[in-house]
């Protein structure tokens, strides 16, 4: 039973934890912790929620505990190189919307801003970070709602507020750097 669960969900859990931590070592530790907890409690799982949702909830709670532990001890984990490389790969997949503005300079600035957005997401408080990362990982609002045990409306509101915080950060960044990728000078 446990082996089936592990084979079915290990990639998703590892991928989610990697997106949340941006650190391979930490994601590995948390994946292990999640599956050990799952193994210990599997006989008590009463299918009140889906196994998928339950397992994701364990992973999110393990990550939140780790964040709390790190914050209490003032530990700051530097983003590992592989996670940052992964970001850049994902960033390249994102299409540039206004095709008439596609110049080498604009594409670079656009990618720089997207990377900045991802750094800001990483710095969000767990309350906002969990829903927006789950959303970016492709989970639907209904699934996120079941995983974090909040109503769909609350999940939408948390994602909206997270986006608002990110926009504010970008505006501050643009104000301080004074750059404007769309300037036609």
């Amino acid at each position, binding site marked *: 039973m446990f082996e089936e669960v592990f084979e079915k969900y290990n*990639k998703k859990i590892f*991928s989610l934890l990697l997106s949340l931590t941006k650190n391979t070592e930490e994601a590995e530790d948390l994946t292990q912790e999640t599956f050990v907890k799952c193994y210990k409690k599997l006989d008590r799982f009463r299918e009140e929620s889906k196994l998928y949702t339950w397992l994701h909830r364990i992973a999110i709670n393990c990550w939140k505990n780790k964040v709390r532990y790190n914050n209490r001890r003032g530990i700051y984990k530097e983003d590992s190189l592989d996670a940052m490389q992964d970001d850049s790969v994902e960033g390249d997949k*994102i299409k540039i919307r206004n095709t008439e503005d596609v110049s080498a300079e604009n594409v670079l600035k656009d990618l720089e801003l997207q990377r900045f957005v991802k750094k800001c997401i990483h710095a969000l408080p767990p309350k906002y970070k969990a829903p927006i990362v789950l959303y*970016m990982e*492709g989970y639907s609002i209904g699934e996120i709602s079941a995983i974090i045990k909040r109503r769909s409306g609350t999940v939408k509101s948390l994602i909206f507020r997270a986006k608002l915080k990110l926009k504010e950060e*970008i505006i501050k960044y*643009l104000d301080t750097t004074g750059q404007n990728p*769309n300037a036609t000078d």
Partner: protein
Amino acid sequence: MKRKSRDCKKTEKLFEKYFSDELQGSIKAEIEGHISSCDDCRNRALAYNTVERTVESAHLLPQDRYAEKEIPSHLKAKLFANIEAINSQTPPFSLKIFLRPAYIAIATAVILIIPLRIIKKPNKGITKYYDSNNFIADAIAQARSINDTERITAKTSDIIGIAK
């Protein structure tokens, strides 16, 4: 950043429609004109577009991307070794076993019965208090009287026998 003018507020409200190509004609031209002349709105538009694109594009990426994030083989080995270790351990003593319904029922019964016994303790047995010395003296006297009675009875029967 300076305070938002009415045009800035109107432009900001229309960002969503503008970036999803829902605006046409004069209103689209008006928005573009304002964005090109107002630095703050240009930054806001850029922030809006970057965040929405980054988040929404990631959300809409195909689900097979998980194939790229294969779990490291050493992690799988470590995890299963850990589980083996858990299986081989004797379960530690846990107070949780006392939370079973049968134990709870017994504990409740004991807790309820003890105070009841103290409150309603039968006192018939202690109404007559004997001083230990008196009790022994009474017992000896009683024994003597029994002996005396037997002796008297024996004498009487002897006398009756002689008389006969």
